[in-house]
């Protein structure tokens, strides 16, 4: 594939998005099927309790360790969480890859624009949750 061909950018970005949603969809579906097998007829109320006084506000474990342990045990909630993380990562990958695609087109202005967007995005996603005073 010739990366200087302007059409290749549309094709590559389109594929990054397509495979991103496909993989995350499959992982989430696996989690749902595991959940359906174990607790289809459970009541939802215990899962849906919102507790404003604890972090996290729900009963699920969102820590990295919890996620890894859950995945090792093929836990349905952990599979769904992994799928959701992959889904959230899809637009981030799209922006990251765009930096290289504009570089292949030698489009300096857009290399800078896209790189700045990527930095702002990563800052907002990963840093602002830990800055006191952000996000009331």
């Amino acid at each position, binding site marked *: 594939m010739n990366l200087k061909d302007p059409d290749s950018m549309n094709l590559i970005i389109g594929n990054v998005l397509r495979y991103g949603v496909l993989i995350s969809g499959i992982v989430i579906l696996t989690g749902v099927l595991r959940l359906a097998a174990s607790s289809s007829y459970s009541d*939802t109320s215990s899962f*849906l309790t919102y507790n404003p006084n604890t972090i*996290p506000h729900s009963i699920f474990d969102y820590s990295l360790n919890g996620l890894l342990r859950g995945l090792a045990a093929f836990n349905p909630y952990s599979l769904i969480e992994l799928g959701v993380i992959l889904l959230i990562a899809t637009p981030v990958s799209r922006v990251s890859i765009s930096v290289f695609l504009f570089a292949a087109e030698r489009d300096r202005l857009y290399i800078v624009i896209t790189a700045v967007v990527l930095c702002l995005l990563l800052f907002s996603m990963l840093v*602002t949750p830990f800055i006191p005073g952000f996000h009331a």
Partner: protein
Amino acid sequence: MLLLEFTLILFLVSIFAGVFGSIVGLGGGVVIIPVLTLLLGVDIHFAIGASIVAIIGTSSGAASTYVKDKVTNIRVGMFLELASTSGAIVGAALASYANSPALELIFGVILIFTLVPTVMKIGEDVPKSPDLKGLSRRLRLTGSYSEPNGSVVQYNATKPAAGLVGTAAAGVLSGLLGIGGGAFKVISMDLAMKLPMKVSTTTSNFMIGVTAAASAGIYYARGDVNPIIVAPVALGILIGAFIGARILLRSRNPTVRKVFAIVLAVTAVQMILSALGVTI
């Protein structure tokens, strides 16, 4: 309610939300939030967490088709993402100090005002394309796409600075409340930058995933992304977005505008009611 029942209802509603969200470029939260809070009795925080996931799903799911078909303008999207991501950070920084209901009221009223020019343009097929000059020329904010009848529409963007301001407002709203950004993105491209309606909604659709991802970290860390809720939402939304993208490519600009005007009116009313303390 039984888990099975809850999951099925949410799955079906999300397909519907994905179809509409991908056509109008807003992402489907408009449908999912009221169904979760009013019909299923879910806390608004979980509803917003689910809406963030729904927006990312609609955006990525439909954009894969729109980008390959070149109806989305990638350069316009990347350029405006400068404003939407900055806006999201500003919104997050303001969240502790801002009076959210007052801001919601202001944004809601602005949306009501934008309804007038949006409705006035109903019937417009392709806007008269301005010459490519100034900043638009430097940023190469131009493009072309094919209509279903085979005709190729060539267009140029105008007033990129105005587009940037409108998109920044969209970002602030997303960062502040987690919702409502898409409408301002479409309006910025439609009313300020004079892009064809389908280019505006699909480029907004392309951008909303990035804006939502910018706010996703905090909702995830807080535990507002509830697996029981987001699983059927994500799966339904992806299927809906796949269907919606195919419908949009076969539709003409006036049809897309009509659907957008209706969703815009609903969004504005929702925002104003929410400001007045009625959560829907």
